[in-house]
């Protein structure tokens, strides 16, 4: 459950103030599938970063799973990111010198989970995303689709309640892109909240709820009754 109240975020470019987010109020229930769309500069990525605790709003309040997030210390926020949130990025952001398995293992290492448990969980993730054959390959030896599968495996290995995907198919061709989307949607079917930022209308339309943004404000918020 995500509840944003009166969120503002302003950037200063020189002496000009840019209102990336301007009084945003938003509620996203557990297990929802939401797409956030809008042209570049509309504030959709900033919104995602604030939901993902990578960025702090200048004002407003943020409640995640009944917990007020803004007042938490840096360390506590890191813990929330570790346990509740999974990120999927357009450019994958895999660590180039680590193998696929090691990349997936990273969040488990950061959480201080013992080695034995880590191994079995990484193995499960590799199996779930059909990466067993590629476990010991580095990102440079993987195709784009495989890289994004590794990234999704990494985002889900801690079993977070929210997956945040920023243009997850932006660097993939159409067919691989829809395969990746199918994987993400499968996570949603199993109860994870899925929030996808995209400027691709077709992709956005797959979500059950579509939020349209422009100039730091939510313009449209409509639900799809199709599914």
């Amino acid at each position, binding site marked *: 459950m995500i509840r944003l109240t009166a969120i503002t975020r302003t950037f200063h470019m020189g002496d000009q103030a840019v209102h990336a987010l301007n009084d945003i109020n938003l509620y996203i229930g557990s297990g929802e599938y939401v797409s956030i769309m809008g042209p570049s500069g509309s504030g959709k990525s900033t919104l995602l*970063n604030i939901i*993902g605790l*990578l*960025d702090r709003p200048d004002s407003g309040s943020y409640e995640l799973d009944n917990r007020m997030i803004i007042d938490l210390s*840096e*360390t506590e926020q*890191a*813990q929330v*990111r*570790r*346990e509740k949130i*999974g*990120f999927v*990025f357009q*450019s994958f*952001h895999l*660590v180039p*010198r*680590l193998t696929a398995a090691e990349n997936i293992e*990273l*969040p488990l*290492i*950061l*959480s*201080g989970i013992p080695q034995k448990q880590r191994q079995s969980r990484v193995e499960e993730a590799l199996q779930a995303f059909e990466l067993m054959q590629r476990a010991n390959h580095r990102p440079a030896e993987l195709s784009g689709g495989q890289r994004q599968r590794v990234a999704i495996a*990494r*985002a889900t290995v*801690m079993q977070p309640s929210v997956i945040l995907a920023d243009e997850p198919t932006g660097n993939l061709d159409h067919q691989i892109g829809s395969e990746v989307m199918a994987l993400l949607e499968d996570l949603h079917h199993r109860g994870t909240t899925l929030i996808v930022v995209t400027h691709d209308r077709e992709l956005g339309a797959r979500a059950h709820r579509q939020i349209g943004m422009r100039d730091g404000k939510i313009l449209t918020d409509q639900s799809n009754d199709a599914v």
Partner: protein
Amino acid sequence: MTLSDTLQTSFKTVLSYRIRSLLIVLAMALGVAAVVVLTALGDGARNYIINQFSSIGTNLLVVLPGRAETAGSFPGAILGQTPRDLTLADAQLIGRIPQVKRYAPLNVGAAELSAANRLREVTVLGSNTNLIPIRHMQLAQGNFLAQGSENSAQIVLGAKIAQEFFPRSQAIGQRIRLNDSRFLVSGVLAAQGESMGFNTDEIVIIPIHHAQSLFNTTSLFRILIEAKNHSEIESVKHAVLSVLKQSHDGEEDITVITQDAVLATFDRILHTMTLAVAGIAAISLIVAGILIMNVMLIAVTQRTTEIGLLKAIGATSANIRYLFFAEAIWLSAAGAILGFFLGQFGSWMIRIAYPLLPAWSPIWASTAGIAVALATGILASLFPASRAARLDPVNALSKR
């Protein structure tokens, strides 16, 4: 993130940047090796000189005429003149001091030695029978002024002199000439080589009376004294000073040097020198530290997106800081250990090349070298690590 995971993760990182890590480790290692080798040299030189100095006698005191201190009383002092010479009578007075084990008056000069149709200039020591044990010399054959022959015209030849003059025949019993005086060879010194720049193989020793008439003098060059034991060196020194002051009409116009004091001075000087070279070598460790800092700063820039990613998947600032920190510790520890062994190897090579020089690096130097390497490595990583930890994840991730 557990400590062992932090160490393992950073170790993998170090391994994955092979050339970069190798160069840093090498720089660190050379610094530590320089400390080890240079202190081994310095301390080796110290031990070498102290050994040499100890070899010239035990519990040794040397009396020399004149005073090493400035005093206003007699005008000749400025010119280095002494009002009274050291004489044999003085030496006999010293012999009566109870703490004195033995003493040897000494005159030194040069004379022409001729025998068996050969001729050469030699250094002549005039002394008594005690000179040989006091100075830790050894007779290979014969004796010197044995009981009952104190005043006979005997001569002891250095090993090389004996070899040169009597290559095929027995030296003992041969008659030789020093300038115009005739001497009977009574002993030959064992070959000892050089010690303190003084080659005992190329000297001859004659009785003190004969030396004084040969050089036409009544004064002594030195009096060597051996105290009964180490604890009595100081009291012998005071006794000698007071006895000779009395016999010199209340004028304290002699100087007594103890071997201990000279040894201590040498020890101090050479120890300081060792410290100085260690300090110079330590500068290279500081340079290696700066190199580590530079490379770490570049690494932070290179890995900006990676740092952003780690934060996004839940790393705290402390996690990131420790990761960079651990990396620096691995690098400097590897450098320190490699450098230590390189340094030991270098010292070993020096010992092989110069067997006389006991080139062992003192333990304090090796320890300090390793400690300074670790400390500079860790200090150098503080700034890059905190810069990495402070990175804003949004900016870090958006960097392409």
